[in-house]
């Protein structure tokens, strides 16, 4: 089995197992760490698909940014039910049916579709074309996303900053 085959297969297995842990584990911190591994597996798959720039972006932004923010939120919102597992599986019935329907539908669509199934993956450098596209055809979208980021950041700061009340002097 070629090395890239082994790599892709192990990324898929790691991703599937980690996603299962994210969905089912009662402890939210373990779920967050399993999310790290599932994001790492997706980054590996990006590398195998020839998207090297996107693999590094996934690592920096998702693993280094979003997961750290999720972990901060988990550690700071330590709820008082720590250790108490939520019992019962009744809450899984309807979501399980929905997800099985979605999964079967997606797999059948994938099997019966007319797109090309196999191809030789070219591993050409992708940074240059992406950069040129961002200032070429996708320049407007680039500017929109910048505005969305700015407004999102301002909104997040406004929501999360401490609110001083009038009774305390210079609040905390």
């Amino acid at each position, binding site marked *: 089995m070629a090395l890239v085959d082994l790599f892709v297969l192990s990324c898929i297995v790691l991703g599937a197992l980690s996603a299962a842990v994210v969905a089912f584990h009662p402890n939210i911190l373990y*779920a967050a760490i399993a999310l790290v591994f599932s994001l790492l597996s997706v980054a590996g798959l990006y590398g195998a698909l020839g998207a090297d720039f996107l693999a590094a972006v996934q690592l920096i932004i998702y693993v280094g940014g979003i997961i750290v923010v999720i972990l901060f939120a988990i550690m700071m919102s330590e709820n008082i039910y720590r250790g108490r597992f*939520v019992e019962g599986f009744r809450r899984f019935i309807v979501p399980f049916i929905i997800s099985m329907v979605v999964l079967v539908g997606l797999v059948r669509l994938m099997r019966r579709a007319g797109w090309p199934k196999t191809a030789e993956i070219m591993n050409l450098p992708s940074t240059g074309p992406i950069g040129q596209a961002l200032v070429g055809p996708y320049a407007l979208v680039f500017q929109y996303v910048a505005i969305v980021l700015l407004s999102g950041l301002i909104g997040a700061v406004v929501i999360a900053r401490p609110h001083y009340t009038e009774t305390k002097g210079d609040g905390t």
Partner: protein
Amino acid sequence: MNGHFASNIEMYLFLSSLFFVFGILCMLTRKNAIGIFMGVELMLNAAALNFVAFQAFHRASPLRGNWLHGHIFGLFIIILAAIEAAVALAIVLRVFAVRRNIDPDQATELRG
């Protein structure tokens, strides 16, 4: 050069379907607002993986016109997921500061 698994698009699409389904399960069954958010992240990753997989298996030529549309879509998905994480977790922290727990089933003041 590529083996039997790595050059078959169905492997990547199957994993993204699995991620999507696990994201749905996570989002619908978690009792923690951050857990729901992690389901959303899984689903976004599934979509981005789909985009990149289709870009790699594009029919005519790999870099047709030299624009990597699928990669750029994936890039924007990652960027927007980042800002969504910031806003969602700011909201979660605010709710926690007021109510001292982030169980979405108990935040029902606006219902009805």
